[in-house]
């Protein structure tokens, strides 16, 4: 099947046109397109392509002057009349003319006098000059001796130019007449009317008495890249984790970013001089918060309340507890929720941003997401916590989990789950435990609270293959565009 351009060029050649420029002019095409089509037709044997290199000759500036005024020897001959004394030849240019006069035998010198001799007929060089004065000409059509002579006198210059000549072959003529016979016009897309009323046969449609062909494309070529709008890959991971928690029957809870030290530390039985509370680890604010009735918390810190604990000793200060901080863990939200909901059963979770005073580098950011889940009920035990953890990690895609003892200030017993990851081995992922009595008793929570948490951004690094935590928050747009929606996490 010939393209539209190829068909038109073939028709022009079979109509007797031979020169690409004239074909281009008649078809309103670019000459390059005509040549490309003719080459393609030539490869298919429909057209004979004759390429030739032609020498064209044209006048130099000096040559143009002589062509208009006559050659110097002709002018000299006319100026000497019957004879001229050599001593009167003053023009220095006359020397060149004199040489050519003698060479052509148009004059001779006798006793110091220059005299014409013979008829001095017009030579082929003068004829050539006259031809070239009308325009450049092909060297092949011109007198070779005259060309050599004028080239020797630097009166002409020549250029090599490529030219093409096309002639239709018999196959080409047949093909051309066939095209003329079907006379389908190529279109790039059908009009609405063609869709509604045209008579379709494959890619051809007969519409209002004419035949059209919908152009076929090279479907193997790629087109421009487009990008969808979508959720952040990290958000998709967070949503996946939320989904797991909801499936497991947990209620989602939320809390303030700005928290009192009371809910962030004291309610969790963190002693007021604990290193984690120091300025270098926690973002403190200037502001003070309202805190709830605190006598039982104070008693618990100072002497262990009524649960048989020793407490931390020392004096617990409500002023220290009022200092506001950016929450350092989601547990501040959890304990407040438990204080508000002390009756069993409670299953709650949250995934939210927490703040630590860490200098930014590839594996530390001052804010990151934490997941936390708690179960409070009658008769739940540490053994149940391990069961929940295994289930949770399995749903996260971590099939191999093991548990080893850990330490967290507000849980007892505590456990550090480790998951097995190909290529990395056992990786510690999160922490868990049962809230201490010293934590739960002041809020009237009488049953065990199983709790666990993990850094979501660490999971994201593992699942998204990131090397730098910052990429989650200061994202590269191309990475967002190209991370597939259906990436398995």
């Amino acid at each position, binding site marked *: 099947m010939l393209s539209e351009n190829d068909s038109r060029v073939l028709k022009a050649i079979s109509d007797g046109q031979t020169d690409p420029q004239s074909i281009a002019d008649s078809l309103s095409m670019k000459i390059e397109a005509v040549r490309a089509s003719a080459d393609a037709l030539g490869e298919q044997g429909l057209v004979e392509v004759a390429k030739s290199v032609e020498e064209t000759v044209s006048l130099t500036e000096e040559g143009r002057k002589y062509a208009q005024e006559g050659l110097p020897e002709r002018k000299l001959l006319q100026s000497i009349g019957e004879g001229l004394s050599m001593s009167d030849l003053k023009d220095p240019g006359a020397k060149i003319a004199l040489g050519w006069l003698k060479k052509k035998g148009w004059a001779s010198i006798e006793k110091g006098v220059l005299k014409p001799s013979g008829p001095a007929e017009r030579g082929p060089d003068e004829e050539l000059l006259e031809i070239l004065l009308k325009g450049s000409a092909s060297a092949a059509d011109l007198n070779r001796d005259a060309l050599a002579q004028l080239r020797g006198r630097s009166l002409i210059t020549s250029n090599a130019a490529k030219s093409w000549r096309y002639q239709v072959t018999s196959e080409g003529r047949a093909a051309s007449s066939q095209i003329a016979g079907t006379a389908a016009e190529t279109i790039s897309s059908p009009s609405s009317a063609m869709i509604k009323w045209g008579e379709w046969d494959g890619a051809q449609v007969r519409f209002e008495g004419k035949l059209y062909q919908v152009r076929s494309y090279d479907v193997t070529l790629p087109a421009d890249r487009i990008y969808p709008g*979508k959720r*952040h890959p990290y958000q998709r991971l967070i949503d996946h984790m939320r989904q797991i928690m909801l499936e497991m029957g947990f209620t989602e809870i939320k809390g*303030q970013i700005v928290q009192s030290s009371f809910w962030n530390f004291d309610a969790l039985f963190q002693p007021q001089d604990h290193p984690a509370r120091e300025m270098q680890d926690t*973002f403190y604010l*200037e502001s003070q918060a309202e805190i709830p009735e605190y006598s039982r918390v104070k008693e618990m810190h100072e002497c262990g309340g009524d649960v048989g604990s020793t407490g931390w000793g020392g004096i617990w200060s409500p002023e220290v507890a009022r200092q506001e901080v950016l929450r350092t863990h989601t547990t501040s939200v959890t304990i407040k929720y438990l204080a508000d909901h002390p009756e069993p059963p*409670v299953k709650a979770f949250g995934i939210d*941003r927490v703040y630590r005073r860490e200098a930014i580098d590839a594996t530390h950011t001052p804010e990151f997401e934490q997941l936390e889940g708690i179960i409070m009920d009658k008769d739940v035990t540490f*053994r149940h916590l*391990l069961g929940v953890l295994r289930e949770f990690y399995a749903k996260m895609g971590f099939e191999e989990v093991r548990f080893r003892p850990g330490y967290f200030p507000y849980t007892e017993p505590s456990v550090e789950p480790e998951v097995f990851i190909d290529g990395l081995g056992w990786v510690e992922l999160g922490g868990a435990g049962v809230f201490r009595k010293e934590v739960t008793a002041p809020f009237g929570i009488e049953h065990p609270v199983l709790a666990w948490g993990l850094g979501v951004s660490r999971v994201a690094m593992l699942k998204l293959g990131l090397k730098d935590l910052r990429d989650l928050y200061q994202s590269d*747009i191309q990475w967002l565009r190209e991370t597939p929606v259906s990436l398995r996490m």
Partner: protein
Amino acid sequence: MPVVRLYYQDMEEMVGASRDTIMSRLAMMGADIGKRAEEDHVDVEFFPDRPDLYSPEGVARALRGFLDIKPGLPQYTVEQGPIVLQVDESVKAVRPLIGCAVVRGLEFSSESIESLMGLQEDLHWGLGRNRRKVAIGVHDISRVTPPFRYFGADPGCSFVPLDFSEEMTMAEMLKKHPKGKDYGHILQGCDRYPLIVDSQDRVLSFPPIINGELTRVEEDSSDLFIDVTGTDPAVFKALNIVVTSLAERGGRIESVLVKRSEGDLATPNLEPARWTIAAKEANDLIGFDLDAEGLAQCLERMRFGARPAGGDRVEVLVPAFRADIMHSWDIFEDAAKGYGYENLQEELPKTVTVGKSHPSEVKKAEIRELMAGLGYLETMPFTLTNETAHFHNMRRKPEASTRVLHPISELHTILRTSLLSSLLEIFSLNQHHPLPQRIFSVGDVVQKGRTHMNLAAASIHSAAGFSLIRSLADVVLQEMGWQEEIKIVPSEDGAFLPGRGADILENGQKKGCFGELHPLVLRSFGLEQPAVALEIQWGQL
């Protein structure tokens, strides 16, 4: 967390088990084993609640129980010694508590000196709150002559501090000695400094700063005097941990009589604390099913003294070096470790509850679906920002914002009160990628200390104009179910080109804004193409 270097050969000798046994069981006792084990040693992290494990000797002691080689309460003999330390009233206001001991018959190597120094430093961190509550001094007793005296000295007193060759005054040490610079703040505002001297006024120690050079412990030292000073009874725990650790190396512990106005005290006191626990309570917490006998066995493995005391009761003797037993649950946790976490049968609880999303997350999910459908990419920028980026670059007047007291850098000084500037920062980081770029963020902002929830969207490309963002605002408001009560009015917001910015009012209250960003705003973020943006506050916690 403290890191303790364990040499395999040393551990094998002290524990009486092979390297492989030790390494395979250590983590299950409660330790973080570093990934890289060296040829002859491994560095292991121990938890802050177990300062008794901050030395190889302490770890070996625990492992002997855990591996059933020598379970039960470790026995130490304290000989009553002749040495007396007098506590002067002048020191009470500065650093009132002191406990001392003598340990004799030690043989040191460079490694065991290293581990003793390591133990001291880790105890300063773990129990001592960086020496404020507890500071430890260890001395070669052969260089000095008892009795000793602990008193509040004039800061002008001078002696040769450790690692120096010339005398200097205590006041000078706080300024010139590296330890003085590190810990001098503990003595800020005191007109007397704590000092321990011998009968001839030669200085042993200037707690909590530095020892004297005179009593430096060297490899040929065999008899040590240990002082532990501070402000908290943890002083006596630290002393117990140091002396029992030295006793594990063959040292003989000898008491020192501390003479005080409130009553004399012979230290160290290695009497175990006595607890009585019920097996039922342990079973209820851990979920195993042990009788008193079984529970006692698990505890002996963790080096408690434990014996059934009738019914389900167990009498527990807590070693004097344990600093973490505050409550019966602390003992139950150790019972679980003794039982072995790996032996606990995991089980899902029977608690029946129905899962429920938080309403704000439901709304966020709807907004994400909407914005993605409109062709916008989600971003999740930091919530910490700074006034320059957040207000000045946005040509907005600084408003009240939550400011952190000790920021980590000038870039993170306040919590954002809106989202828009964060989106422009993301554009500025992505200028090398093809336009148009369309991004959004749905997240928390903090205003007057309360968490609010916003949506912001922005689009940057040569054709980003007002009608585009007006269309977006209209469709977003409509899709969020808001259109009824909303009014759009011209905005005074400096972030937008005058005449091309609008405010969104809900019942006369400003809820958002949108428009063409002012070229000066774009320029301050280094952007070179037109951009339009929208921000809406849709909720609060």
